[in-house]
């Protein structure tokens, strides 16, 4: 009824002044150039500084230019766009630097000798030595942890998805969540307090126990997700044939989701393989090869990196980088293989 009175007649045109397509790039290039110029003029050397200046100029410049040529709404939109790009680029720099410096410095001493020798008779300030003992320790500790955590984790997930309904299931779910958040050093302290009780010296398996505590909730969570993806029709079809529930789970549910469960376990292994803190408290580290995880201090890869770094020698730094590269490679291979399995064995849930 009162349509015409309150609504201001807008300009009927759909056309608005628009910045050309190349404008954002031009502004970006301009601000980088200006950032470099200002830094050079002021004698600033740090790349962090000119990058920050350029980023600020870019965001600010975009707003001013867009607000003049277009309108405030467009200007806001463009500022957010440039902020988002700037945030992305700023975050890429350290992460790329991390990968780059690890690779570049890691390859210096990384060779077959390095992988097959221990630090047995090598002082930190000397060249030579290797990580054989550390790799051995990590594989044993992580392997034992997996042997403990994987079955418990998978069984717990089966309980939660296939059986659990009451208070017990609810509290297990809750405490699995809580457990996910335990700092690794606290898990280490827990095992340590037991060891103090029985007056035990550090040994590899103690580390495995702490790592298993860290691994269990991760396995439970991922397995749970995978089991939930198995369509109920499959279970019902099997049960309707008179197959007992436990055989249904073993023969129908688990095979359907085995790919995803494997992926979850491998990702969990990748996570604990890099844990340092509990190993530091419980396994203590060693320069020698100790193939018995149940007796005496052992080395481990992440701990080796920490201790080589801690010695403060340039030669030790080289070894620390090389060990880092080895560790990253190990973790990445696990990750890639795990994801490969996930893609290859993805349960077909489509209907």
């Amino acid at each position, binding site marked *: 009824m*009162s*349509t015409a009175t*309150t*609504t201001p007649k807008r300009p*009927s045109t*759909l*056309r*608005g002044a*628009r910045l050309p397509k190349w404008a954002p790039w031009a502004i970006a290039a301009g601000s980088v150039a200006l950032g470099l110029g200002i830094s050079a003029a002021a004698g600033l050397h740090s790349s962090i500084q000119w990058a920050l200046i350029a980023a600020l100029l870019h965001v600010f410049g975009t707003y001013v230019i867009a607000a003049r040529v277009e309108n405030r*709404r467009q200007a806001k939109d463009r500022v957010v766009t440039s902020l988002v790009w700037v945030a992305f680029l700023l975050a890429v720099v350290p992460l790329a630097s991390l990968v780059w410096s690890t690779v570049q410095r890691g390859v210096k001493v990384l060779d077959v000798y390095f992988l097959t020798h221990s630090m047995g008779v090598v002082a930190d300030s000397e060249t030579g030595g290797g990580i054989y003992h550390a790799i051995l320790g990590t594989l044993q500790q992580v392997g034992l942890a997996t042997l403990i955590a994987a079955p418990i984790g998978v069984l717990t997930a089966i309980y939660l998805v296939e059986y659990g309904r009451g208070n017990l299931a609810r509290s297990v779910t809750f405490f699995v969540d809580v457990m996910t958040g335990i700092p690794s050093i606290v898990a280490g302290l827990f095992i340590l307090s037991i060891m103090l009780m029985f007056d035990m010296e550090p040994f590899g398996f103690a580390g495995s126990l702490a790592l298993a505590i860290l691994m269990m909730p991760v396995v439970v969570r991922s397995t749970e997700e995978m089991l939930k993806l198995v369509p109920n029709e499959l279970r019902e079809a099997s049960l309707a044939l008179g197959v007992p529930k436990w055989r249904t789970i073993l023969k129908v549910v688990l095979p359907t989701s085995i790919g995803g469960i494997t992926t979850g376990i491998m990702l969990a292994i990748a996570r604990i393989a890099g844990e340092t803190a509990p190993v530091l408290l419980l396994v203590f580290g060693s320069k020698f090869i100790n193939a018995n995880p149940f007796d005496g201090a052992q080395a481990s890869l992440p701990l080796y990196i920490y201790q080589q770094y801690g010695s403060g020698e340039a030669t030790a730094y080289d070894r620390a980088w090389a060990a880092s590269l080895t560790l990253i490679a190990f973790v990445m291979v696990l990750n890639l293989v795990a994801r490969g399995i996930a893609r290859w064995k993805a349960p077909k849930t489509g209907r």
Partner: protein
Amino acid sequence: MAKRIDVSGLTAYYGSHKAIEDISMTVEPRSVTAFIGPSGCGKSTFLRTLNRMHEVTSGGRVEGKVLLDDEDLYGSGIDPVSVRREVGMVFQRPNPFPTMSIFDNVAAGLRLNGNYKKSELSDIVERSLKGANLWNEVKDRLNKPGSGLSGGQQQRLCIARAIAVEPNVLLMDEPCSALDPISTLAIEDLIGELKERFTIVIVTHNMQQAARVSDRTAFFNLSAVGQPGKLIEIDDTERIFSNPSVQATEDYISGRFG
């Protein structure tokens, strides 16, 4: 306010797939035009090209012209954001903003487009809700979330939100397909009232609905699955439903296929 739409030679793609081919038609202002046709014939795609929503989907691309009172929506220098303000849209499933109150939902479009005084804003919100035949049902709970309404009320809330910014054209993509018969009737009555002020284009699967609400009806069809959809004919609704000029239209309407 209502404007005429003139489409000529319009073809739309999803990536390399051609969804609709070479469509031309004219939609008169202050009328209701219904699009009917079998599933997948491209009527919704075509509707979405009329306010440049098609290009939002990945790979969406359009060739041809859509004139809104002589101005080409796909011309150079046209801002798709302004196009969508002039050509409002109501979707298949009611989609009020779940975190906003009823009032804020209706005011959402206005707040984007400049500074309104509070009293001005509540006037427009009230007028829009009345225009959508929803005012009496919600006037006591304007600050409650819009998601608490029934499906039919939510759809009318979405219509109120669309008409609050006074668009020239209102596009409706199967607005009643998720609603029960009573809510459907309410929306159909509302469409009859809204055509006094807006140019309305509605996509529907329900032929009785097309016959009830529209002045003109366009029939879309596709020759085979995977082929682009085409406009078969557009004519006065009465003629389409009593004496269509193309055999395929008659087959479809009489239920011989689709």
